[in-house]
């Protein structure tokens, strides 16, 4: 099957046409112009350099991009977990918590909160929970998984130790942990990779967070287990209507899970939109290149998989203008290497940062 840039073959990785998410009302999380830089002796690494996107209640936003493009740092910025020498230098992270049984409605700019303060600590784990990138090492090996889940529960819920233990066991059961009562006392190194990942998910779910941030939760486990964990996440999302930011560099996973896709490159959002648009009508050359590199069931088995041409520039040597122009098949000399296209949405369309589609330049490049 021939693949062309204009009509990428989405094949088996195409999203389920039946799934449609209608965005209504105000987003639960709005990231606007977020910049997180690492100031080092060698120079400034602009790990996140002007990222904007929204997450609505009940929606799954997939953040995709090659390794090192700033996906994790974006979400660590949201949780305010960026460690020195990293720092949020600009932007807003508006979190809007709807009023629920125990909480009042809340609207807060997380970027402005003191990093170690009480308010952000209540939001971490309680409102926004993380399913980390390295599930293998994310439990302390010296403490039982049960005690670590109970700790999270006691931090955010007004319950006794015994009730916390019951909740923890209940969550372990919910994520499909076999014999959760016994596994409660197990140490992470006694569990297989898949079970460990389930335990991590149970911990993230333990305080019924409004937002789940799943940072490549399946990259470190084998393929069969990956499929099971993804199935679990899908099922949990359906049952709870969770709002999830799902980070991955695997477009196949995006197709399965996401309602809305954010494509990142070198700390910037290149394009974003509903999953069907991204897969069937990709506009940014980078998105197209990514889609071409996805294996498809219909493709002939032995053909060489095209990858995105060229390599990712060193973080300290950012190209001028559009960061993708040195690798871009459609780069316009004198335009793309000079000015940075803004992430601009034409009326009725979704935002894309490319001069092929509009003439808006990024105003501030500081």
């Amino acid at each position, binding site marked *: 099957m021939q693949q062309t840039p204009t009509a990428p073959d989405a094949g088996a990785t195409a999203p389920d046409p039946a799934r449609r998410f209608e965005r209504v009302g105000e987003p639960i999380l709005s990231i606007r112009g977020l910049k997180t830089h690492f100031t080092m002796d060698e120079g400034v690494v602009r790990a996140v350099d002007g990222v904007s996107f929204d997450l609505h209640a009940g929606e799954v936003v997939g953040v995709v991009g090659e390794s090192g493009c700033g996906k994790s740092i974006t979400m660590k910025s949201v949780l305010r977990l960026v460690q020195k020498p990293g720092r949020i230098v600009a932007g807003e992270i508006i979190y809007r918590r709807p009023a629920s049984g125990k909480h009042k409605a809340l609207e807060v700019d997380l970027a402005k909160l003191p990093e170690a303060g009480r308010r952000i600590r209540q939001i*971490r784990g309680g409102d926004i929970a993380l399913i*980390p990138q390295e599930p293998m*090492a994310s439990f302390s090996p*010296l403490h*039982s998984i049960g005690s670590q889940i109970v700790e999270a529960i006691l*931090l955010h819920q007004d319950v006794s130790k015994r009730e916390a233990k019951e909740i923890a066991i209940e969550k372990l059961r919910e994520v499909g942990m076999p014999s959760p009562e016994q596994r409660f006392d197990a140490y992470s190194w006694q569990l297989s990779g898949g079970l460990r990942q389930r335990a991590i998910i149970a911990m993230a779910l333990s305080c019924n967070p409004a937002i789940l941030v799943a940072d490549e939760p399946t990259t470190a486990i084998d393929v069969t287990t990956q499929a099971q964990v993804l199935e679990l996440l899908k099922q949990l999302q359906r049952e709870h209507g969770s709002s999830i930011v799902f980070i991955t560099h695997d477009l196949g996973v995006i197709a399965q899970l996401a309602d809305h896709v954010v494509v990142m490159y070198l700390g910037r959002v290149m394009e974003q939109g509903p999953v069907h648009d991204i897969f069937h009508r990709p506009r940014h050359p980078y998105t197209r290149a990514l889609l071409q590199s996805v294996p498809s069931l219909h493709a002939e088995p032995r053909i060489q998989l095209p990858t995105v041409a060229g390599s990712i520039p060193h973080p300290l040597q950012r190209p001028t203008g559009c960061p993708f122009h040195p690798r871009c098949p459609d780069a316009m000399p004198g335009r793309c290497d000079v000015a940075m296209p803004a992430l601009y949405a034409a009326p009725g369309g979704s935002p894309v940062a490319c001069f092929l589609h509009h003439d808006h330049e990024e105003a501030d490049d500081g």
Partner: protein
Amino acid sequence: MHWFILKRLLVVPFMLFIFSIISFVLIQAPPGDFLTSYIAELTQGGSSVDQAQIDALRQTYGLDRPMVEQYFTWIGRMLQGDLGVSLEWNRANSELIGERLLLTLLLTTFSLLFTWAVAIPIGIISATRKYSLVDYVFTVLNYIGLATPNFLLALVLMWIAFDRFGLSVTGLFSPEFAQAPWSWARVADLMSHIWLPMIVLGVAGTAQIARVVRANLLDELGKPYSEMARAKGLPEWKLVLKYPTRVAIAPVVSTLGWYFPQLLSGGVVVSVVMSLPTIGPLLLRALVGQDMYLAGVIILLFSVLTVIGTLVSDILLAVLDPRIRMDGA
């Protein structure tokens, strides 16, 4: 856990047996025995040597028998609680060692506690405030602490105490208590003297351990489980103490067993300089005078302490780390 401890305990007699052989061979190693040096001394002094008396001594101590037999006689007596008699002092070894051993143990324990109590917090503060002013200050202090020989530190502190405050801080007791029987007043006097040698003996170890804790903790703080604990909403100090510190201090705990022998050999000069009634100088003298049974007993006692120290550190490590605990089960 019980199995773990039991297994460790079962190894103890075996280790002690090995150590006792090594101690015995070591003290026998130099040419001649106590009696040859004793006779040489007496003849030099012009006294006549009573051959009958010497033969009697040889027989009592079994010095004329083969080595293996000597060893078993010696160890057999030890097992019955008879530590033998010092040839040089002509007093029971137990009497010579008794209080010195107690004071040595006390001093060692104090300096160990001092070391840990100071080094671990410094390590934690340095690691959590990496490259801050406090961290740099501690780093400089650590280098100074590591580079200063402890007897020199002893001399400097003694001089300062004497010059500034008119205090004589040698020994572990004031003169009036040195030979007195134990009483609360004597304990109080001991406490008012013990802190200086405690610091002197502990400084180098403190600097070393602070560096180890800092380096380990920096490693652990970067690990995903530390970040995960932060992502749960745990306050920073609580998180640091509960998770990464527990991993970071394991190597420190594992050095517990070496602490006694290290202080025994390293502390001899300090003990001499500060006239501390500890066991180090006694061992030195016993070795010089070929007072082999006294030396043997002291070396063996320290082997026992080392074995106990290792056992305690193993148990502590098992308490800290379930992987060690379960491995032994």
